[in-house]
């Protein structure tokens, strides 16, 4: 088997870019190169968004013993196009008492913030738009802007439900940002770098057939789960979809948004979800690397997107199964479970480094995480006297 064509396939987009850049004058080359990356991001992820909406609706349908959309285009795949056209031609209503400028800017800001995060995501070998040495920090910093966008949307609408939704959203997002950052710190400690490209690269090696993914360590697994839970909350997905909890506060902070502005919010939320899943993949799931050494011939970007789709499927799966948490439980969970656990994961990642290789460090790290998990979980449930019950019967 020749390595060359495989590698070519792996690097096909990189080569394509080089080839295209080669045609422009040298002075314009950096700009064109950047532009190409930007255009790729702007084209690819919205397309993924469109696809995901159908996937979600169909997936939920299957979980609920039905088909889901299947008539618009082949297998219902054109459904998002129809939705898009509809949204585009729908009347745009802005409440009279709304703060119009802020109301207008909020969805744009959300979409922009969501897009910016993609700059540092390595979607394949040599395939990151930029390689910032503080890439992870950049990612979180950009994510922080989304909170502001949500607040702007909720506040400017001048609607009670919107404001409630926005306040819920911010409280939730800030609370889960801490465990999100802390759980990724474990990986940064192991990798010794904040650069997403580098972190992904670190995990591309193999021991036997097993990859060096951080998720395959006790602290990595725990960190990954914490990271994904926090990510679910950050992106307002079920069971943390309180900010738009339809059964409680109508449509949350975008109650007063119509037409394409509403679609932009939707887009922004999904883009956020992809981005944060992408970061999770980069940090814990080996980025673009193959799960087994004998599968490396499949192009790296395929692996990345396969993992992304798998995580999206899990998001959809959870949405199809779980009821929503309540605000106080959500906050309790963030501060009284997620935060201590994230700190412990960090400490255990530190311990991992200082212990010698072997079974011992597996056991120590596992115990370090498992015991507090059981205790904290018990504290969460039994502290509130929550548990299964038995019932009396009268004849």
């Amino acid at each position, binding site marked *: 088997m020749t390595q060359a064509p495989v590698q070519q396939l792996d690097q096909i987009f990189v080569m394509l870019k080089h080839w295209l850049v080669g045609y422009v004058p040298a002075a314009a080359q950096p700009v064109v190169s950047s532009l190409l990356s930007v255009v790729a991001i702007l084209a690819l992820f919205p397309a993924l968004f469109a696809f995901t909406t159908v996937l979600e609706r169909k997936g939920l349908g299957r979980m609920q013993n039905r088909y889901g959309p299947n008539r618009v285009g082949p297998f219902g795949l054109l459904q998002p196009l129809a939705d898009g056209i509809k949204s585009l031609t729908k009347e745009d209503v802005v409440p009279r008492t709304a703060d119009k400028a802020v109301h207008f800017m909020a969805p744009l800001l959300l979409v922009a913030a969501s897009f910016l995060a993609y700059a540092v995501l390595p979607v394949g070998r040599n395939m990151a738009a930029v390689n910032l040495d503080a890439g992870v920090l950049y990612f979180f910093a950009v994510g922080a802007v989304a909170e502001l966008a949500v607040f702007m949307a909720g506040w400017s609408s001048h609607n009670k439900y919107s404001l409630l939704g926005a306040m819920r959203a911010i409280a939730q997002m800030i609370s889960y940002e801490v465990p999100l950052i802390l759980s990724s710190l474990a990986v940064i400690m192991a990798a010794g770098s904040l650069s997403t490209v580098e972190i992904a690269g670190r995990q591309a090696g193999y021991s036997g057939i097993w990859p060096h993914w951080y998720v395959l360590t006790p602290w990595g697994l725990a960190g990954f789960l914490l990271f994904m839970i926090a990510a679910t909350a950050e992106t307002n997905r079920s069971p943390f979809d309180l900010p738009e909890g339809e059964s409680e506060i109508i449509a949350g902070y975008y109650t007063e948004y119509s037409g394409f502005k509403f679609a932009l919010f939707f887009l922004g939320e999904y883009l956020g979800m992809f981005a944060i899943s992408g970061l999770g993949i980069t940090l814990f799931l080996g980025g673009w690397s193959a799960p087994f050494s004998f599968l490396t011939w499949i192009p790296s970007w395929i692996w990345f997107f396969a993992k992304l789709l798998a995580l999206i499927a899990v998001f959809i799966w959870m949405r199809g199964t779980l009821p*929503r948490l309540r605000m106080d439980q959500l906050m309790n969970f963030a501060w009284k479970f997620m935060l201590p656990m994230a700190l412990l994961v960090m400490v255990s990642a530190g311990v991992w480094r200082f212990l010698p290789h072997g079974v011992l460090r597996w056991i120590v790290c596992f115990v370090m995480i498992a015991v507090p998990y059981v205790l904290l979980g018990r504290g969460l449930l039994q502290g509130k006297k929550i548990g299964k019950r038995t019932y009396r019967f009268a004849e």
Partner: protein
Amino acid sequence: MSAMVTRVVLEEEESARGVEGELLEISMGPHHPSTHGVFRMDVRLDGERVTRLKPVFGYLHRNHEKIAEKASYLAAIPYTDRLDYLCSMTNNWGYALAVEKLAGIPVPERAEYIRVITAELTRLQNHASLIGFLLQDMGASGTPLMYAFREREKILDLFESLTGARMMCNYMRFGGVRVDCSSEWLEAAQNIASSFPQFLDEYEQLLTGNEILMARTQGVGALSAELAVNAGITGPMLRASGVNYDLRKVDRYGIYDRFTFRVPLGDHGDVYDRYMIRLLEMRESVKILEQALAAIPEGPIIDPKTRLRGLRPKAGEAYGRIEGPKGELGFFLISDGSTNPYRYKVRPPSMINLTVLEDMCLGRNVADVVVILGSVDIVMGEVDR
């Protein structure tokens, strides 16, 4: 008796805070996704905590009683279908029972059995959908509701093949039932009765142990037995508060004394208990169904001496009640000897169960309100009539 205690405390708290202008006043409803129809709650919020909640209804007040007083005894039956539109069979039965009391009409054996079978099937589909709606209010994207409706469709198919309609069965008559059921129908009902526990297992697997569900429901909306009795709460909600009062046992109306079944009772009276009591009641209903299907005799299905058209009961009055899926469904009829009831009054369980809504919701937050309301099991057709 401390029935009014909660109310007083509430007002004291409110005046003590003295920040009325700073609280958020929200009307939830009449168009709200989880008010189960056109119900409205005027809520005052401190942050997200409820400091006052006033139920407002009447948005579906369609003058059922007035129309029935202008119509004959027979013509009122299809209207009863539309009271609690999820449970037309039990509504029919309640009304038929009241008229039978008023006019002294006997009911043949077979009709009684068919009534029990259809009523228990109704209870099954009502409880199943209620749990689905409750979970929907809790934010589960439709999956439990879909499973509930999957089973409900099977029961509705049964109803349709017996009565011709899925929801508005218009099936029972004073003195019996309208049409006889075939042996195939009984077989189909038997199939449902024997497969229903599987569905319940699935439901329990999906939900009962779920930590989120438990956290959302346990300790939420607790209702004391004392207050429940005083406020006239009936049905699963009363039993969840630990009061053993099931009209099927107390009144032994129809032929319920022939069946062995148990009445599940809760100890906390919270939303979780209400949820569990309904699940357990479904299992008991299946038991009743099995017994009734095994013992149903042949015979006439309607009292031959009763005139359906132009029934003129002697002047007098009667109050008849049954254990509807939502609680005590009563009909109070006054006859002046003419073909129309002089006074026709429905005792709607879901409306009276709302009496304590505010008591249960105070101090909880918006998300709880939605869940508590869901656990009360209201149908606006019945609340507003």
